[in-house]
């Protein structure tokens, strides 16, 4: 039996997950409810990328495989799960500084984390990025509608049930993440490379806008 490498599974993108609240928390519960080998650590990476970098820099033991999981709007069909392997690359200094600005100004997004992590050379050879595309709805719209209907702001407004469809997405995403964590690139034969030049431009991240052209990478 082959021993597992040290694996970090990190959920990234507070805002992205929040937009489809409670998709993120439900998904995290689902992951944590799974039995994981002791080599695999599941944690939230919803911190500023610089903080994540500093955590890596000070860690006594670094992961040999990182699986980053996020909800990202890349203009794909809702429910699309994509799995890519980070291959890094270089940005010109000005573009990188823009990412740093975003990172220290509170934009928590997997693209920024990848870029800033690359800049500070924290990533191991094997970084897998698992994303799901969700429909363009968000908790804010739901709250506004509910507020308009009831005329009051109450605790019950936040008790937002996950639809059956989204529950299905949770399971699909969890399956891909589990395979990526346990088997790495071997378990995901359709992996395509994901380089720094393919990151969503900064302004689009920050405005939470869709990318107009769907990405051309392989989807599952």
């Amino acid at each position, binding site marked *: 039996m082959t021993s597992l490498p040290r694996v970090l599974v990190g959920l990234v993108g507070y805002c992205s997950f929040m937009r489809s609240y409670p998709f993120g928390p439900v998904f995290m519960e689902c992951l944590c409810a799974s039995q994981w080998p002791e080599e695999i650590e599941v944690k939230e990476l919803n911190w500023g990328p610089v903080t994540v970098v500093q955590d890596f820099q000070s860690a006594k033991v670094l992961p040999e495989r990182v699986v980053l999981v996020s909800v990202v709007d890349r203009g794909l069909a809702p429910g699309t799960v994509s799995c890519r392997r980070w291959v890094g690359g270089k940005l010109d200094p000005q573009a990188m500084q823009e990412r740093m600005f975003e990172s220290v100004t*509170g934009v928590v997004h997997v693209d920024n984390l990848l870029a800033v992590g690359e800049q500070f050379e924290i990533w191991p050879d094997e970084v897998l990025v698992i994303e799901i595309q969700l429909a363009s709805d968000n908790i804010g719209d739901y709250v506004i509608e509910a507020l308009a209907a009831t005329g009051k702001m109450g605790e019950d407004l936040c008790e937002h049930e996950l639809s059956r469809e989204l529950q299905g997405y949770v399971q699909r995403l969890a399956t891909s993440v589990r395979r990526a964590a346990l088997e790495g690139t071997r378990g995901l034969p359709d992996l395509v490379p994901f380089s720094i030049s393919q990151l969503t431009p900064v302004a689009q991240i920050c405005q939470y806008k869709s990318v107009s052209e769907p990405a051309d990478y392989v989807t599952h």
Partner: protein
Amino acid sequence: MCFQNLPIEFDENGRAYLKEGVANPYSYQTESLEERDAMLKEIAAKNGQIQDVDFDPVTRVAGALAFHSTVDLEKRCVLDTNSVATLFRGYEVILRGRDPRDASFISSRACGVCGGVHATASALSLEMALGIKPPPMGIVLRNLLLSCEYLYDNPLHLFVLAGPDFSASLMRDTNPEIWEKAQTAKAKYPELHGYDTIAEIMTDLNPLTGALYLEALEMTRVAREAYVLIGGKYPHPQTVIPGGVSTTLTPTLLNEFYMLMRSFFDYSQKCIGVWDDIYDFMYECNPDYKHVGELPVNMVDFGQWDHEDYYDGTYENCNEWGEKRWSTPGAVVDGKLVTTRLQDLNVGFEEFVEHSFYENWDDQDVPFKTDMVGQPISPYHPWNKTTIPRPGAQNWKERYSWSTTPTWDRHTFEAGAYSRVYITALAGKMPESNYVKSTGHSLVLNIPKGFKLPARQLEWKIPEVWNAIERNRARAYAVGFNLAVTLENWTRALDLQKRGETKVHTKFEIPSKGRQVGVGFWGAGRGLLGHWCVIEDGLLANYQICTPSTVNACPKTPWGESGPYEQAVLNSPILETNFKDHSDFKGIDILRVIRSFDPCMPCTTHVMVAGTDQMITREVNTCACGI
């Protein structure tokens, strides 16, 4: 007499009252911005350069502020400006009707970098409303937490956000003549930072690779770690609560905290030395830098860092305990300190929404005509304000921002880390300390011996002019000031611990009936912070927050006075030299002005080039939320 515009006078006991015979004491004339627009169009018609300044924004926004300037590149001046907060945050709406104990935790989320100050301002507000006096150790630990926030925030701004504007890579692009001089210009303060020439400093300010840039990132981590030792978590600590803190004070906690703070002994000297050198050099290269972002000195700060022997949380005594804070509250009008009394600051405080995306509230039937000691307050005071969002299309002549317009004595004013340095220095009222002294014209800092540098006395002096450079310079000295206050409070914490006074919290209950009113006078890394609360029958009936970026980024007053960003940019010459036309114009001088305020929102500047239909967009990211 601190009020020149509001019809308020004082009796022999210093208590404010409304002048007699004034029919509508808080009325005001509204100036239509149509006139301003017409004036600009008239200029355009005369010189044929501006076709239209009334453009829709392209909010390529990394956050919550847009800024629009109309620039004449030939005459090198700025013709018009509009500052726009593009995000509705709505904490005032969220908090209405909630249990007051929720306020610290929810309002804390207003900012990721100021993730402790809102919790503290909220706690102070409730302490006043509910009559809670924290134990001395609770007050002192709260002060230490605040210092950590500032030691994290101010260096980040100096080196990661504003610093690159003075870096070698930027200077080569915008002002190669300055970069050329920097090669041979000797640094004046090598004993503080170790650099021989200005070019060496500028090189280490380069983003991503510069040693000063990278060191600042590391120092922010040290400060956050110190915060977490006491606060348990940052941002958004759960340990800052009304009545003190819920920290468990162990015998080793203060020692561990001190070990982290030691890194700042040398670093604070370095911050001051680096920025003194850079800014002195900029003036020497071109004295017109004194006019970049130049404004008359109008600023308000509530002070912060309470003295445990004086703070009792009451409004009745806030003038006394306020003046005993480790940074002195006050209002400076046109360079003169007109008051250091918190009640005066509160009485003169108003908020207007004529040019904001909010409905005006009913100003006739407001709940409070006076404060808790019978002094008059305005219908536009936060205790009387109702937040009524009214989203709409942006219109420079009407409503164009989600920021409101706070005023003190009917004028807009600045808020910043520099305000606490400035007012504390000018007031000469701070309590006796081994580490910091206010002289009435300067702030003397006694920085202890560090790992490499000897102990040293450094002095910030009130500058002759107030501009973008001086805002940043004062912020660099604020790092030393923060450290000095930290050491003062650390020493006090040790003394309290020795005496066995280790209680950190006072229990309290919220009455289920009646009305209670409070205000948390506090500060954030970027300046003045106020939380005003009204509790009715055990729930929050009203909660209002005023942040420093609301103060600085505000749209025009109803009577047409611009906010600080807008005024400062309008006053700025354009000293960028290395451009031919709008296509390669960087707008660096405008960006330096806006960044000098350390806006707590990533901000986009749009520069409309007169005589063209071109708009140049520049990012002005400065906030440090969520690092």
